[in-house]
């Protein structure tokens, strides 16, 4: 979105809804435009979730419809639906073959924009409201419409995730980051339509697509348009080694384990028959509401376990 576009958006919001709430098509436009434009940035993203916290710095370069993200231990190149991952051992790529179209939940609306400045640039601060509650606050660069600061709040209004750019320049640079030239054979095309045993919606999140997951599992992708998560289900097994030291928490008496990364939360639990891993960027209060609507954790009896161990 151009500066003119943003101004139009701001004006539309201010004019149409003087009480501070806006039609969500402005938010849709904002979300769509936040993902376009050419820029180079260095940012920090951090997350504080209960006693867990995590942070990372990253560098993003976006030009000619491609994004290059240099992260802590790997690089990502995004071009359309193609994701290429690079590390010391080379590049590989994957993409989804089909997906259902994006829709934004009507529970979100845009608050009134406020002119401000960030990194010495004219910017606009906007809030994303969920009902009457502030769910997110963005500071958007006027020229490029790129969010320079993104703050996400939990159900009690506490900041739990912050992404902020510390260096930012608009336009493409001459010294482009190196693009991958040859890919490893590990290119994965995910196909939709795998059967999932999960609800079509959970706590305002819609199951948009299901895919066959690695090692015989199923991936269900849920989104409310603003946040999203995938639930991977597989035949029940013991707690993966990654989660053995993870923080334990409970929802409705069921015990879950979580790992917090700067941009996502990972949750593991098992029902008597299946094991689940949820990964997504949803806020803590949403997570609790979602887990309450997904299959609940549970143990199975010793003999069932024995039977399945031997004959399943």
């Amino acid at each position, binding site marked *: 979105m151009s500066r003119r576009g943003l101004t139009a958006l701001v004006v539309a919001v201010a004019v149409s809804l003087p009480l501070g709430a806006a039609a969500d098509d402005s938010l849709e436009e904002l*979300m*769509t435009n*936040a*993902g376009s434009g050419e820029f180079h940035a260095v940012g920090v993203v951090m997350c504080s979730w209960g006693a*867990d*916290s*995590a*942070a*990372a*710095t*990253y*560098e*993003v370069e976006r030009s000619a419809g491609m994004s290059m*993200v240099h*992260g*802590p231990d*790997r690089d*990502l190149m*995004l071009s359309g639906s193609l*994701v290429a*991952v690079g590390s010391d051992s080379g590049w590989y790529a*994957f993409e*989804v073959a089909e*997906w259902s179209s*994006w829709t934004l939940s009507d529970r979100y609306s845009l608050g009134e924009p406020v002119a401000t400045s960030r990194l010495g640039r004219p910017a606009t601060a906007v809030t994303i409201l969920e009902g009457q509650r502030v769910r997110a606050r*963005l500071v958007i660069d006027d020229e490029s419409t790129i969010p*320079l600061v*993104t703050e*996400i709040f939990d159900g009690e209004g506490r900041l739990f995730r912050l992404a902020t750019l510390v260096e930012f320049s608009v336009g493409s640079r001459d010294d482009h980051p190196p693009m991958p030239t040859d890919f490893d054979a590990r290119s*994965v095309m*995910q196909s939709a339509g795998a059967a999932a045993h999960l609800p079509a919606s959970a706590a305002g999140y819609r199951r948009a697509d299901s*895919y066959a*997951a*690695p*090692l015989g599992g199923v*991936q269900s*992708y849920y989104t409310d348009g603003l946040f*999203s998560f995938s639930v*991977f289900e*597989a*035949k*029940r*097994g*013991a707690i*993966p*080694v*990654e989660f053995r*030291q*993870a923080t334990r928490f409970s929802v409705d008496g069921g015990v879950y384990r979580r*790992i*917090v*990364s700067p*941009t*996502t939360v*990972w949750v593991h639990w098992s029902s008597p028959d299946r094991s689940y891993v949820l*990964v997504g960027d949803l806020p803590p209060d949403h997570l609790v509401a979602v887990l309450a609507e997904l299959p609940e954790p549970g143990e199975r009896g010793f003999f069932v*376990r*024995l039977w399945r*161990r*031997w004959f399943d």
Partner: protein
Amino acid sequence: MSHPGDLLSAYLDGEASPADRRLMLEHLGGCSTCRDGLRALEEARDAVRSLPMLEPPRIGRIPARARRPSVAWALSGVAAAVIALGLAFVPDEPEAAFDFDMLRDQHTARLVVDPGISTLRGPAGAP
């Protein structure tokens, strides 16, 4: 004035009071030991000051309590599961078949086709 001791460094750093500075100047005029001392201190200070300022790495992370899943861990998990299956007498369940790097990639693959907040979305694949 007796030898000024640690006031010499303070003098060098402009951290001595005006009164001390005056006394020091008078003393230095007649004391070659302190003049040499001052020169030595200055050399030591300059050696440290001329150390190159290093650029911090752009990229880093704090895995506070979070442990990032890795291929190695996942593979060791699969190996453990295979061994556990072989030893059917061990009453532990095998691990569920999750390869976390693949799960992350798969979530990312679907995530990127939706519009989103780019500054969060950018590093989403690389927690």
